């Protein structure tokens, strides 16, 4: 008979998860070394969706390059744009009007909600529950409609521009957001009933994919992944930008460091996002939505770094300027890239089912990793 399945005498064999695999949410490729069902090693292979955005940005002007960044972490497109706009503003030393700052932060938090919604649905799907996906998309759809009305697009909005936002909010924006927020709290309760409390789900999540505090710091993890391991790293708290310094919200920190902690951090972060929006939505000050900037932006010679908190963690925009209209070198420090590098540490020794649960709670967006 022909040879069936190559493996070593000890029964150790490798399988390829991805680039097309339901659990990788995109084109991530993991080479997994297995002993039976137990994972010995995970090696990520990246680059299936690498577009070299950094190189592209070198030939685009400071106004133009922002739209490309929506295509990195497409689930927090607003926040990516926000980071770039802030970085350019830092170089230009432009004061952004208060109205624009308020709008930006509300948009950021709506984006975060939408992103966490999608994560919640997709993660429930990873562990085998299909129905939550649709409930999550129902809420996400409402947010998208609000976005569409104000920004003109649903996913890659390109709404933030250096100096403010591209257009004023839609007249119905405030009313619609308030309506959404009012109904949304019940939805979180429903999510908890359907998924969080479920005994099967808790068993799948608890004690799985453990990441210690030291490792989280050493691997450069950020966002909910690091906060679930007890690292206080919320950029919104540590280095507040725009009006984040003025709003009241809690930095969610869990200390258990397992998948369930990461899950809880995100769920509770959704509540905090709601809280931020509630504080801001009624108090948007009157005024300009955009500061006066020159038609052609030129950054002074120097280096500018801006970090923001996306739904996945700390996004850094590093612009090296030679004084021209285009950046000399631009680097995006993407949260997913660092979080992914810790995957081997988390999933080692677990089962294949654990790997899926762990990857689900990492909330990987592959274009963000590959850029």
């Amino acid at each position, binding site marked *: 008979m022909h040879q*069936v399945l190559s493996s070593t005498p000890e029964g150790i064999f490798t399988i390829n998860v991805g680039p097309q695999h339901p659990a990788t949410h995109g084109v991530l490729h993991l080479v997994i070394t297995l002993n039976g*069902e137990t994972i010995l090693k995970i090696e990520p292979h990246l680059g299936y969706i690498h577009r070299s955005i950094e190189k592209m940005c070198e030939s685009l002007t400071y106004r133009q390059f922002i739209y490309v960044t929506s295509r990195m972490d497409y689930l927090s497109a607003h926040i990516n744009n926000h980071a770039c706009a802030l970085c350019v503003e830092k170089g230009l030393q432009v004061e952004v009007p208060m109205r624009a700052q308020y709008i930006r932060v509300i948009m950021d938090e709506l984006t975060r909600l939408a992103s966490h919604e999608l994560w919640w649905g997709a993660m429930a799907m990873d562990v*085998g529950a*299909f129905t939550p*996906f649709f*409930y999550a998309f129902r809420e996400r759809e409402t947010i998208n409609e609000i976005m569409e009305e104000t920004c003109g697009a649903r996913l890659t909005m390109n709404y933030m521009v250096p100096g403010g936002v591209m257009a004023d909010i839609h007249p119905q924006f405030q009313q619609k957001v308030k309506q959404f927020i009012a109904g949304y709290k019940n939805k979180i309760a429903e999510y908890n009933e359907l998924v969080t409390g479920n005994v*099967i789900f808790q*068993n*799948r999540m608890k004690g799985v994919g453990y990441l210690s505090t030291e490792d989280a710091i050493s691997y450069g993890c950020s966002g909910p992944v690091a906060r679930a391991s007890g690292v206080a790293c919320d950029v919104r708290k540590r280095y507040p930008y725009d009006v984040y310094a003025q709003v009241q919200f809690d930095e969610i920190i869990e200390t258990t460091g397992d998948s369930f902690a990461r899950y809880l951090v995100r769920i509770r972060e959704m509540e905090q996002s709601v809280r931020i929006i509630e504080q801001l939505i009624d108090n948007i000050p009157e005024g300009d939505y955009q500061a006066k900037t020159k038609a052609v932006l030129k950054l002074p010679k120097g280096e500018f770094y801006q970090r923001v908190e996306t739904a996945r963690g700390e996004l850094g925009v590093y612009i090296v300027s030679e004084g021209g209209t285009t950046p000399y070198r631009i680097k995006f420090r993407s949260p997913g890239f660092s979080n992914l590098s810790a995957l081997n540490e988390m999933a080692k020794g677990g089962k294949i*089912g654990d790997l899926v649960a762990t990857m689900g709670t990492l909330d990987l967006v592959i274009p963000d990793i590959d850029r």
Partner: protein
Amino acid sequence: MLNTISFEAIKTAVQQWLNMHWGPHLAFIAECILIGLLVIVFFAVLGLLLVFMERKVSAVMQIRLGPNRVGPKGWLQTSADTLKLMLKEGLTPDGADKFLFNLAPFLIMIAAMLIMVPIAFARNFQIWDINIGVLYISSIASISVIAILMAGWSSNNKYALLGAMRSGAQIISYELSAGVAVITMVMLTQSLSIQDIILSQQNGWWIFKGHIPAIIAFIIFMIAATAETNRAPFDLAEAESELTAGFHTEYSGMKFALFFLAEYINVFIVCAVAAILFFGGWMPFHIGNWEGFNHIMDYIPSSIWFLGKTFCLIFLIMWFRWTFPRLRIDQLLNLEWKYLLPISLANLLLMTIIVVLKWYL
């Protein structure tokens, strides 16, 4: 009797006609062929119906509309899908063990078909009332695991192999608690024959008059049945977010459709068995000696009773599937060996006491 056009009447008429015209031997052969054809047709219709039902149930639970384009209200959707699957090329991978690879889907269908034998669809309408009906069902049900292992191994695909191995561990362990739950009910009826079991529920179904042990046995049987049919939350053999499609990763076209069909047939069969054991099969809803009430209930045809009960249970299993996340393989085995098996054994003891003391009605 009440039902002049019952299944029983049709069966008797056909039998008489055949015997009258063809003589006993030929009539027997003709009957066999007829039954075979009936079972195949029944399978096809059932498959289409259950797939459609699953899609609609899941859709409404997921705040969607579900299939609604092909035919009135989408009723022909599954037929269209079947047509598509038939037209698709049935690929056999190069590295596969071709004989086993092609055999496996048929084996799983044959196993499903064989279980059909002792199930009573209506009053006196049964292919063969074997006196060990329940035992026969439990033993034939285990054949499907061979087919799954065969499919997984012969595919020469690591995902398929992992899925098959999971499935093997799962089905073999859940057979135990399903078996014990069945034995609990056999204690009550004191017969293995399906006919006897149904008739013993003449004045009330076992779920109502069997006290707590019957209810516990029912719950355990439903859990074990869900596991045995490889359905969520126990669909580890397929677990599409982990193993893409598990043991049938490499199958396509009609061979894949057979696996798919077999899953639904198995769901139907386990639900039918549960309906027979706990809800009296085709037996109408009777309460003790309320003659009037029982009489009204008898007007509803027995086949409706049987199918109604079965489909309610199928709905329950579908409800499970669209609500719960999937278990992990070690948790799955934990659940069986640390929870279901001890509980069902204790339950069996309890039932024995009840039966010995004759506490049941």
